[in-house]
């Protein structure tokens, strides 16, 4: 498990996968894109780690012990504004529907293109901000203009919107 030091304007990600080589490489790539990344290789570690605040979590669906769906349920119950993206080696309509019912924002099949993950992260972060500031019309309007286009640029701009209140 690793926990990166955050600076005030970083999006905080929790990444959980039992495939440690995958976890470490993905974490490295996300950190180089200015995310604050905390990793966990199983559900229990993730729950311990998730006592802090995270913006988005990326969870592997199939893990030993507590699986991704169970972890998704627990995290959603305890973190009101946390958006969750599920990763799986085998995407099926049934599991996608089940994860969506449990509150997952997105569902990606491995291996994926990182640009695709960045686009889903952008959309997840936008949804988080809309839920967090539902009555802030000015912020909503600005968010709508950021909803498409380059994911990294949009994420940085959204982060500034999130920071306005902090």
């Amino acid at each position, binding site marked *: 498990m690793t926990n990166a030091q955050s600076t005030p304007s970083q999006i905080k990600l929790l990444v959980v996968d039992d*495939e440690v*080589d*995958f976890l470490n*490489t*993905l974490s*490295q*790539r996300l950190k*180089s894109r200015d995310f604050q990344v905390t990793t966990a290789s199983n559900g229990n570690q993730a729950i311990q780690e998730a006592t802090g605040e995270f913006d988005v979590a990326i969870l592997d669906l*199939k*893990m*030993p*012990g507590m*699986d991704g769906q169970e972890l998704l349920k627990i995290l959603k119950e305890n973190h009101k504004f946390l958006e969750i993206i599920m990763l799986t*080696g*085998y995407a099926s309509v049934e599991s996608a529907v089940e994860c969506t019912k449990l509150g997952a924002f997105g569902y990606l099949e*491995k*291996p*994926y293109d*990182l640009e695709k993950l960045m686009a889903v992260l952008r959309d997840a972060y936008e949804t988080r901000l809309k839920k967090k500031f539902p009555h802030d019309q000015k912020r909503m309007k600005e968010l709508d203009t950021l909803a498409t286009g380059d994911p990294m640029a949009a994420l940085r701009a959204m982060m500034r919107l999130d920071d306005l209140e902090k």
Partner: protein
Amino acid sequence: MSYQWDILGEEGLQFFGKMSASISHEIKNVLAVVNENAGLIQDLIYMHEKGMPIDPEQLKSVSQMITKQVKRADTIMKNMSKFAHSTDQLIKTESVSVNDILDVVTNLANRFADMREITLEKIPFDEPIKIKTNPFFLENLIWLCFDFAMDATGPERTVRLLAKEIDNSAQITFSQLGSLPVMPLETFHGKRVEALLSALQGDITVDTQAGTLSISLPV
């Protein structure tokens, strides 16, 4: 020896499908690691183009990671190939090594054991055991026993596997099954197991007190 094809066919297809799905999942995991590392190389090239020096140690580490995953995939595919070829002669018996068959099924079962946080421990044999049997049906039976043994394992969360030759029969024993006394044996020892035992001319003995399940097959 009798073949109840309706049961054997359905069970065999389910077994083959379950193992194939598990193998494809493992291969997807390998591909995901390779894909992330290929992406990391692209990231390093992009940063280099922006004027950042490339660290040779980091490149070495990425290369080692890819090599490691290629070896992992090769091992998975070799085992899959052995498994797939066990169906080559479905109605004939052939001389097979019990050790080889156990290796194939243990390798296949390991992923399921990992998911259930169970360790599979194969005790090395004193002598190689050769039997004349149908390899696919034997793999199927061993898998059903593994699956049941994983449910029946005790607090150690370890299933121990031992094979030996006793009185002209090969005996494969699953031990450390501490939960056997409370397991519903009838759900395991049903039509599927009976059909496989009949096809293999084998027998199964369960000792709830000792926490063992043993398959006996003629040598």
